[in-house]
């Protein structure tokens, strides 16, 4: 994991001020389990070379700027940036993400039953 340490050290600890991760006494703060999954996915995708961390951070900073009234939470914007980037990179399509979201929302798909 030496590799991960290094990029995490340099990049995640140097997020620009407008996109700072929510923290308490230096520890990351997640208000719900999905937030930590979204965090983990963004970092893991970067680690696997799907995009540069800076690209993700730029998207996130733009998202944050576009919501000055803070109507959405930090991790809602995080998720939006992540999904956009995944679509942009051709990792997934928007249609299949919408479709799968719909399946989970309606209960047509439910992994918890397994």
């Amino acid at each position: 994991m030496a590799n991960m340490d290094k990029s995490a050290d340099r990049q995640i600890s140097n997020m620009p001020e407008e996109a700072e991760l929510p923290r308490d006494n230096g520890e990351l703060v997640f208000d719900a389990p999905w937030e930590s999954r979204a965090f983990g996915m963004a970092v893991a995708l970067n680690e696997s070379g799907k995009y540069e961390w800076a690209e993700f951070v730029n998207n996130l900073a733009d998202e944050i700027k576009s919501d000055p009234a803070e109507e959405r939470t930090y991790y809602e914007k995080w998720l939006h940036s992540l999904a956009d980037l995944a679509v942009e990179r051709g990792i997934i399509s928007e249609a299949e993400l919408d479709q799968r979201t719909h399946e989970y929302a309606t209960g047509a798909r439910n992994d918890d039953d397994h």
Partner: protein
Amino acid sequence: MSGHHDDGHTHEQSEPEIRTKALESLLVEKGIISTDEIGEVTRLYEQDIGPMNGAKVVAKAWTDPEYKRRLLEEGTSAIAELGYVGAQGSRIAVFENTRDVHNLVVCTLCSCYPWPVLGLPPTWYKSDAYRARAVIEPRSVLREFGTELDEAVEVRVWDSNSEVRYMILPERPEGTEGMSEEELVGLVTRDAMIGVTKVTAPASAV
């Protein structure tokens, strides 16, 4: 967080929660990342890094003089004894705050930080103001953090770089003699390990 209830209703999930699940399911299905990888990243950031690691180092040094000697002599290996290992090639040096000497850490060039023990640096640590003023007028900076030092106390400022990161071993507060190592961990704050504040004893212990 199961969505399965006996009455047939599903647990009400928020839109982002469902969308996160959908995204993860697609990424895993396509073999791009695994559920374990995501969990590993999250676990690493949530539990294995952060000021708690540094606090354990400090509490051990407070209760084990032999460990403290090793820590001050060669920080990197003493910290590694507790399992905290950082990026290759960067050492961690530890300085002790005492009655007579107060140490403070800054990175004037960028924002080098002893990441394995303290986690992510606070916003102010990276600010231009802190980086410039910590060196020029450390006493004023300390005062702004509520740290009043006697004029007789010598202030030493340590400028981090990519080879060496610094961590401060704060002074063990009076009135904590009866506390266990585990209890002491809870007293140590991130700011005290950067050197901008002192560790204070809980009201009940004094």
